[in-house]
């Protein structure tokens, strides 16, 4: 966890302006709408409100801060270009931003792996099994506190499977190997875990 620093130490603060406490979701939607028209100032505000989460996710998946910066830059450029394609009825603005970010981060690690795997077997590459815990990175925001609470609704294997897949950027087949699960069951654990997380957080449904 070398690259993950706690941002803002101390107890969660209910005050606005705490790290990570951005504008209300509806404000993000408005900023996206303005960005789609080419409003660079609105986009700068969108960046300020979301960059910590976008960059933090990129760092978490790709691990290398320099590459995470590139992923973040690519993600925000795509968000700017495609802001007009954001569909408010299909999800939250932040969820949309993070979907784009996550995909770019995963593409980055998979293409890097494809390049190195030619000289190393899959098994060797995956020997040092690292069981990521989704709760290990510290970020003192109310929302992070809520998420950690919601993760308690998951079984341990669901929590590990979701964490390895989303924050680790591994395929469900790799997750199965890492958790000693039969191939085919990891995807079920991931889905069940996400459903519990969704229901505990009250999002997206």
């Amino acid at each position, binding site marked *: 966890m070398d690259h993950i620093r706690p941002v803002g130490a101390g107890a969660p603060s209910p005050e606005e302006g705490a790290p990570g406490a951005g504008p209300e979701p509806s404000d993000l939607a408005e900023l996206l709408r303005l960005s789609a028209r080419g409003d660079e100032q609105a986009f700068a505000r969108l960046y300020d409100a979301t960059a910590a989460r976008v960059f933090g996710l990129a760092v978490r998946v790709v691990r290398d801060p320099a590459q995470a910066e590139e992923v973040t830059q690519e993600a925000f*450029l795509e968000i700017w270009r495609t802001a007009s*394609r954001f569909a408010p009825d299909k999800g939250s603005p932040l969820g949309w931003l993070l979907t784009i970010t996550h995909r770019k981060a995963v593409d980055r690690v998979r293409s890097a792996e494809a390049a190195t795997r030619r000289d190393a077997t899959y098994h060797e590459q995956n020997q040092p099994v690292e069981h990521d815990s989704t709760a290990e990175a510290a970020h003192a925001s109310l929302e*992070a506190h809520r998420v950690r609470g919601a993760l308690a609704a998951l079984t341990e294997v669901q929590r590990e499977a979701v964490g390895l897949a989303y924050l680790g950027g591994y395929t469900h087949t790799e997750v199965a190997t890492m958790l000693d699960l039969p191939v*085919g069951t990891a995807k079920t654990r991931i*889905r069940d875990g996400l459903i519990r997380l969704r229901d505990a957080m009250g999002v997206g449904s």
Partner: protein
Amino acid sequence: MSSDYPGNPGYDVHALSGAYAVDALDDLERAAFERHLAECPECRAEVASLREAAGTLAETTAVEPPAALRDRVLAGIATTRPLPPEAPAPVSLASRRPRRRVNLLVAAAAAVLAVGGGAVLWQQPWQESSQAPSAVEAVLSAADAKRSSLDFDGGARATLVHSDSVGRAVLVTEKMPPPPPGKVYQVWLDQPGKGMVSAGLMPVREDQRVLLAGDAATATAAGITVEPEGGSDKPTSDPIALFDFGRKA
């Protein structure tokens, strides 16, 4: 990869929604699931809700980026044009019967290939199909691989290879000029009873091998059209190339 794989009995594509939502599918599975998503509103809704759930995890990993990154991002967008909203796509090719032979609409192709420009491709996350080398190789080396090539003015060449045993098709292009500004090349499979079904967008590269999404074993033809950036649900223009698979009508 065991029996739990697309095309094998007992394979439940529906159960992939969670892994798909967190980008945890390999390329073959993703292509299969995206085909399923196109016709399963329940799965689309579930994927959307599970993506929201996964996104909440980013709250636990937030890290302030370096200030210099903000400058780079804002400098980058200042020179990039936001895309217009997606226009509703009229259907023109969907009901068209597949042709018997490899066919090139010369006028359309000339119009496309004459125009240069550096359009950048945009793909929705769920539309991206980065190619699985293994699947591409499987098609190209299959014993029953069938090939047909089209030569364009200017030296560009497109070759469509499909294999019924693998069930996939690969488009190989050489010296392909970029699409006109604001446009992309989109590939299609003509599926019986459904018409042209999107098989993905072509990355902007002169020489490439694109794995087409969708079942090539049931398709009767493949086509390439020029579509607005982001692609279309159905073809909105005549194809610049059509490859008939030579099946009996």
